[in-house]
């Protein structure tokens, strides 16, 4: 290891922060929050540094660190990032940084809250930077448990109790990971003969070329992974945890969950599903595209009739994941670029949305849309955040959502014209429900009952400024995001072209 272990440092920063917090007295509320903010700031700084230092021309995995861990099982601690994982990493720390500030007003057991938050963030960071499936699973499980505790203690009960939503969330995620686990073990056992077995993603990705994985095996295993990652990504009909879960969760968890956790599903589908099991991916892609259309339209329509703000955004995120899925299912460079870009874009906008909903709820004590109205009078800054997030969500050009969506459409339209047409019609319904929310919550006559509600100020503005400026800057200069994503996708393009050319069953190219 001749260079500074950047990725380890990024991952360890929250953990060290959490450790440090555990030694602080629980009364030191301000210090606890500041320490959390500081650790996330360090992580953010390191990730931005990595983003800047990443060599586009070189491409591929960079900042690689590798240490042997459990050699008998072929597990090694490999970290590395490429153009696919680096945006996800940036997304994680951006949102993580914002969640600390969005949770600034938490007073109930704040020490435990921030410790759990930091552990959660370390877990998510780990899933994106590891290049070893075993470690991937390890980090993933590390994510699930803090979420459950956080929902139960700091959540809120509305249509469903927080116990129900926490349970639903956790069980879905664990169920997903169970399928994932079976798939991964299956893969592990079949990819290489005994003695050469390994969990390394790069090595497993070679197995297909070597002809170790038969097509039938790939189809079956990809199905397992599809269920696992699909339930994480809220693929229809495995989506129903998402709105309920967000509704019960505290702001920070909703932000992280909608913003980053769902993206582990998409990331996994690409990194593990597509790259390791290409024939399986090819077999299932049309089905994924169909389910994606269901996601877009079904969730879009449902979002139209929701009365709770969080449910609207919950269903909206399900709907947006449909775009990611159809971009993935196109299995071409353009669609893949769009899918990854859209994961980033959706992460930022949904986190901003949830942060703003958190403020509204905190100040007005209601999320019920008919009870709200005219908040732009009392809370112009929150209203600005809402507008930004909403407009990004309906794919307004100049904000982060447009270019990824457009890219997805270009990619998907080529492969599935009918599905793509249906999915694109989603932009109408997205606009319909977003505008409805904006009109009913922000606009309208001034309501005197909200006169006492103060606008976001001081540190509360940090999520708005951080996420909002990312929204605009990456929207106006999309190459900053798409260039990075493309550097990860471009090397896959010949692979994808070959995959398209391969006959449906038993392709000679892959033998």
């Amino acid at each position, binding site marked *: 290891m001749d260079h500074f272990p950047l990725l380890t440092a990024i991952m360890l920063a929250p953990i060290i922060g959490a450790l440090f917090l555990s030694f602080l007295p629980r009364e030191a509320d301000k210090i606890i929050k500041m320490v959390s903010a500081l650790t996330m700031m360090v992580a953010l700084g390191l990730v931005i540094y990595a983003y800047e230092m990443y060599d586009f021309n070189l491409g591929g995995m960079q900042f690689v660190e590798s240490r042997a861990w459990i050699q008998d099982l072929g597990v090694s601690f490999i970290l590395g990032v490429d153009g696919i994982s680096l945006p996800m990493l940036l997304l994680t720390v951006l949102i993580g940084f914002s969640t600390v500030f969005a949770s600034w007003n938490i007073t109930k057991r704040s020490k435990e809250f921030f410790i759990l938050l930091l552990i959660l963030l370390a877990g998510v960071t780990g899933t994106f930077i590891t290049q070893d499936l075993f470690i991937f699973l390890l980090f993933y499980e590390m994510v699930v448990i803090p979420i459950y505790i956080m929902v139960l203690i700091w959540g809120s009960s509305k249509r469903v109790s927080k116990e129900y939503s926490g349970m*639903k969330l956790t*069980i879905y995620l664990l169920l997903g990971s169970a399928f994932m686990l079976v798939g991964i073990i299956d893969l592990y056992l079949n990819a290489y003969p005994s003695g050469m077995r390994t969990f390394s993603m790069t090595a497993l990705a070679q197995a297909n070329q070597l002809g170790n994985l038969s097509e039938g095996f790939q189809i079956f295993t990809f199905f397992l992974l599809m269920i696992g990652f699909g339930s994480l990504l809220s693929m229809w*009909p495995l*989506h*129903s945890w998402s709105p*309920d879960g967000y509704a019960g969760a505290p702001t920070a968890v909703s932000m992280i969950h909608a913003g980053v956790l769902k993206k582990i599903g998409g990331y996994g589908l690409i990194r593990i599903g597509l790259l390791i099991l290409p024939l399986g991916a090819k077999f299932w892609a049309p089905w994924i595209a169909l389910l994606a259309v269901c996601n877009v339209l*079904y969730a879009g*329509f*449902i*979002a*139209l*009739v*929701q009365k709770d703000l969080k449910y609207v955004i919950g269903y909206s995120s399900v709907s947006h994941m449909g775009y990611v899925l159809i971009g993935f299912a196109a299995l*071409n*460079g*353009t669609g893949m*670029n769009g899918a990854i870009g859209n994961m980033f874009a959706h992460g930022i906008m949904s986190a901003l949305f949830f942060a703003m909903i958190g403020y509204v709820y905190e100040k007005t004590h209601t999320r019920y849309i008919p009870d709200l109205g*005219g908040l*732009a*009078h009392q809370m112009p800054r929150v209203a600005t955040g809402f507008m930004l997030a909403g*407009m990004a969500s*309906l794919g*307004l*050009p*100049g904000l982060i959502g*447009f*270019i990824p969506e*457009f*890219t997805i*459409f*270009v*990619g998907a*339209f*080529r492969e599935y014209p009918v599905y*793509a*047409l249906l999915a*694109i*019609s989603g*932009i*109408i*319904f997205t*606009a*319909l429900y977003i*505008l*409805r929310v904006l*009109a009913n919550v*922000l*606009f*309208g*006559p*001034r309501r005197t009952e909200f006169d006492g509600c103060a606008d976001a100020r001081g540190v509360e503005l940090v999520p708005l400024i951080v996420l909002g400026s990312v929204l605009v800057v990456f929207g106006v200069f*999309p*190459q900053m995001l*798409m*260039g990075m*994503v*493309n550097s990860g*996708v*471009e090397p896959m*393009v010949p692979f994808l072209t070959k995959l398209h050319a391969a006959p449906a069953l038993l392709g000679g190219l892959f033998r």
Partner: protein
Amino acid sequence: MFNEYALHHAWLIPLLPAIAFVVIGFFLRKSPVLSAFLAITMSMVSFILSLGVGYGVVVQHITVEHPLIDKIPWVDIAGLSINMGMYIDPVSALMLFIVTLVSLLVQIYAVGYMKGDDGFGRFFAYLSLFAATMLGLIIAVNFVQMFIFWELVGLCSYLLIGYYFHKPSACEASKKAFMTTRIGDFGLLLGILLLQIVFGTLDFAQLTIAIPEYVQQYGTGVLTVAALLIFAGPIAKSGQFPLHVWLPDAMEGPTPVSALIHAATMVVAGVYLVVRVFFLYSMLPNVMLIIAWVGGFTACFAATIAITQQDIKRILAYSTISQLGYMMLALGVGSVTASMFHLMTHAFFKALMFLAAGSVMHGLHDKGNIFEMGGLRHKMPITFAAMTIGVLAISGIPPFAGFFSKDEILLAVSEVSAPLYIIAVVTAFMTAFYMFRLLFLVFCGPEKPENNPHEAPSTMKFSLIILSIFAIIGGYIPHVYHFGEWIRFGDASHEGLNWTIAATSMVLSVLAMALAWLIYGSGKVSPDRLAMRFSTLYNVSYHKYYIDELYLWLNYTFVRGFGKILYWLDLYIVDGIVNGLAKLTYRMGDELRQWQTGYLQQYGLILFGAILIMVVWLVITAPISMASLRGGAY
């Protein structure tokens, strides 16, 4: 020198207002004077630059065939690369001139109109943003850039219609505007994607070359679909039937906005788009016919509604729809020249009329019903003069601007289709009628004592006067200076007036004026009696053919109904299965826990019994032999 600079720095034209938007939005919102000053200064510079561009186009002989294109890569990824840049040709130079001029005048006007409003700074920020995005749209080099700014002007329109966001009606109107145009954008986006898939590029210049070749090779099948889909965008944006419903409601915005966005500039973006991609449409005569009929129908249809409306801005709004229909009609019959000419004159006189209407409402404290006005010519002479010029211009009375452009359109239509020509003439007649109706009701007749009108402040008057001048000379000067040689598609069209057509329309306009005077000016015929007499017709027209109601019903019944059904499905079927599974697990646990008696000895007994059974079982099935049971040799 200057024209050289302006030509190559035309990208500054949209950029300057954008800078104004950012600066006002972040720093100057609280200061009305500074924000207005900055916005107007930036608009002024933009205007001067676009004058330079126009001059440059003329002296450097930049024609529609040889545009000046400059672009930089914006997004470049596998399978898709998008440029941003500027496309300067006479058409876009003309549009730059119109937009910067009207926008500058409207901003000056707004200083007086919006004085004392709480959101003064916000208003100017939005106006600047609008100017920036509209100008960006004009110089678009490819479909994506066009689409991006197309959406952004929609956003500005949304923001400005909903400017008085405390008014529920304004909220609704802004939502409606956004939604309706979004439906069009859906088609536009699909069309763009189709072109991208077929040609692999969306660049206007490249498509101009590629499309004729493609048509020769493969025919027009796919292109027809693409062209029709793209036309959905203009239908929504330019308020063509059946997506016109948002435009009248858009009058909830402040009047300067109505003048700038919903009369003079943004709504003509649809026309401009069709002109810009005329290389596509000119290949597809069937699509052209559809465009012509949509335009013609819209023109006539909107005019029939305008006749019975009572709100001054709504009348103007329907008039705008009607005139936009005219422009589409002109495009449909293949005359870019006529269409753009009318676009220009319309921008002048319609902006003028809107600003005059704003002045009236400003003087009457936001009263809008024309039947409650009357006799304002004494107290508001300048406004009266301005409105009169506008009405004369739109009615096609020479030598005002509208006469020349309308004549051009009628001429072009008459060469293609007789039915459309008749529709166009009837529309012209109705237009003159309802415009004079408005003029007579508002400014003539006895003064209403409850009104206490006052003339507009000087900034408003300034804009009125300037626009009046343009509305007077804006037709004649271009007519004389060979407008058609610059603004055209294909060969230059013919010059000069066709006196038969000109005379017909002129006579009809005068007749309409006389009829309007008879009913609304002199009071010889009671309008109420007429309304009673033709009550069905009157009601249908007054209620805008019940199209709003239809859409509302469709939205509620189908879209929301469908949403409700799906939500029910989600709650009780999809989630029901999930919860059912959970319940099943719970039940099973409930059954199994009965076995947990709490008697330790029972557990022990079962334990030992099980061990026994296992041992016996293992021995019988012999996976372990007796020998291994012994545990090895000792």
